[in-house]
């Protein structure tokens, strides 16, 4: 927002102030922008470059050879993991959207003490991600609180298990990413002017009609942002798959981690990560195509 230049100042001082105002945003923004440029934007390009390099398996010295073979090879070799990741991440995202929408709606429109409930949504972040997932392993274990009790009541067969299945991984992801879905939905719903809904009521819309024709369409950008912020990280997650999924439900994230840290196969790991990033970029491009380009940043 431009402040009006005060005209009662001497001309020279005004000029200095104008220069200061011109430079101020760059000076203020420079440290953070530089940090993000160096350690977020540049690495994206080194990652792309690494995926086109060929590395000596012994010395790990890499040269840029424009070897694009890693991409088709990655897709060909690991397509099962990609499909599984999309399946688990997609299912978890849908669950989160369905579960979080009424909650976000309630906080935005009905709740007093909004800041209290928003804080509640963020509480899980104060417990380490790994510990949260660990407690679900705990809860879902074969003789744990839920399964153990049901088995003792002979409501479930003794060999029934949830851990080490895709169900457990999906449930874990859905749990861990729920706040990332709820917050953008809340922001979108909170922004709806109640007068618009009153207008709908004045024009004889029933409450369900007003919801379907006014509230829901106005929330669509938030729903899309929530989808992106949940789905993409969920697809890349490997903690849930490792802790809850046993050895037969590995996801793309597991492969990237192993390739990078265990097998030091940097080109392949970089190619896999680049594909994940591309999915995100395509999603954002789609958003700006359909819903306009200026708004998505407002939902985080």
């Amino acid at each position, binding site marked *: 927002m431009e402040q009006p230049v005060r005209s009662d100042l001497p001309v020279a001082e005004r000029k200095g102030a104008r220069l200061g105002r011109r430079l101020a945003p760059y000076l203020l923004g420079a440290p953070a922008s530089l940090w*993000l440029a160096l350690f977020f934007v540049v690495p994206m390009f080194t990652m792309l470059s690494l995926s086109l390099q060929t590395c000596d398996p012994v010395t790990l010295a890499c040269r840029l050879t424009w070897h694009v073979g890693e991409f088709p090879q990655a897709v060909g070799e690991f397509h099962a993991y990609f499909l599984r990741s999309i399946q688990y991440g997609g299912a978890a995202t849908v669950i989160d959207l369905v579960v979080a929408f009424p909650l976000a709606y309630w906080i935005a429109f009905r*709740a007093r003490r909004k800041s209290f409930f928003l804080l509640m949504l963020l509480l899980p972040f104060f417990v380490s991600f790994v510990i949260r997932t*660990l407690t679900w392993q705990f809860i879902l274990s074969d003789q744990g609180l839920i399964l153990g009790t049901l088995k003792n009541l002979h409501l479930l067969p003794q060999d029934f298990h949830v851990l080490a299945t895709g169900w457990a991984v999906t449930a874990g992801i859905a749990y861990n990413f729920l706040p990332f879905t709820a917050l953008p939905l809340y922001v979108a719903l909170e922004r709806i002017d109640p007068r618009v809904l009153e207008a709908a009521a004045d024009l004889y819309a029933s409450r369900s009609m007003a919801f379907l024709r006014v509230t829901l369409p106005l929330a669509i950008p938030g729903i899309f942002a929530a989808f992106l912020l949940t789905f993409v990280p969920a697809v890349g997650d490997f*903690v849930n798959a490792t802790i809850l999924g046993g050895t037969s439900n590995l996801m793309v994230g597991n492969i990237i981690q192993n390739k990078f*840290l265990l097998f030091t196969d940097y080109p392949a790991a970089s190619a896999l990560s680049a594909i994940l990033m591309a999915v995100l970029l395509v999603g954002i491009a789609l958003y700006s195509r359909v819903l306009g380009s200026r708004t998505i940043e407002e939902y*985080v």
Partner: protein
Amino acid sequence: MSAIATTEPRSGSLTRPPARGARRRWTSFVLPTYSAAVILYLLIPIGIMILYSFNVSRSHLPNVTFKWQGFTTQWYQEWNQIPGLTPAFFLSLKLAFSSAVTATVLGTLLALALVRYKFRGKVVTEQILFLNIAAPEIVLGASLLGLFITLNLPRGFLTLFIAHVMFSIAYVAITVRARLSGFDMAVEQAAQDLGATPWVTFWTVTLPLIAPGILAGGLLAFALSIDDFITSTFVSGNSVTFPLWVFGAVKVGTPPQVFVMGTFIFTVGVTAAVINVLLQWRRERAARAYRASGA
């Protein structure tokens, strides 16, 4: 995340949806109950963690087990008895404090630039912030490791610090920006009209008013850092943070001390967050009372 700092009632909400009197709809009961249930579900793992930090364990190498064997504060007394875990815990605290402070300063400055000024590259900056938050952590970690490998930078505390500041800045900037955009610039101009220099105005007027937003951003950065596993696993080298240690121990079993430390971190974080929210409430109440008395 901007939701955290935008808690003032929206402009139009003076006209609350009319109470429906005797004909209260079923939704007025179902929706709150449902919301409470979801929030309870979110809190289950926290409850389990706290509860089982008090569980007796009789095995030779004490690990948390699901069977409740009695109440004990033994693990709180022996909280530092696990070799490797205590240094990891302190490393995480050190990392979270240093990266949160750095990210809060950088993020706040960036938020000031974004709200107050139009400048070249503003849209790009905002898009990069969104991209940074939406990017899967595994990509952040893997690409950063790629950079460090290319630069031949040895992995350790420094690389962890770089990574944690990197993924916290955007959250801080967005939280503070939300607080700033609800800010009445007239207050600043009043200060300047009364002869305050821009510098004095910033320290005595602007900063105290946006302090809750800055604090919320800082807390978020702290929570993100102490919580982080995926990015850290790529750039940590031989440094072991608390989540990394816990993950490494999953296969062999979790000593109860892990839950003790988790409970400690949780308590400290929540206390700080609650104090921030309470201060904000008090401020808003005072502002309302002042406005009411003035009018």
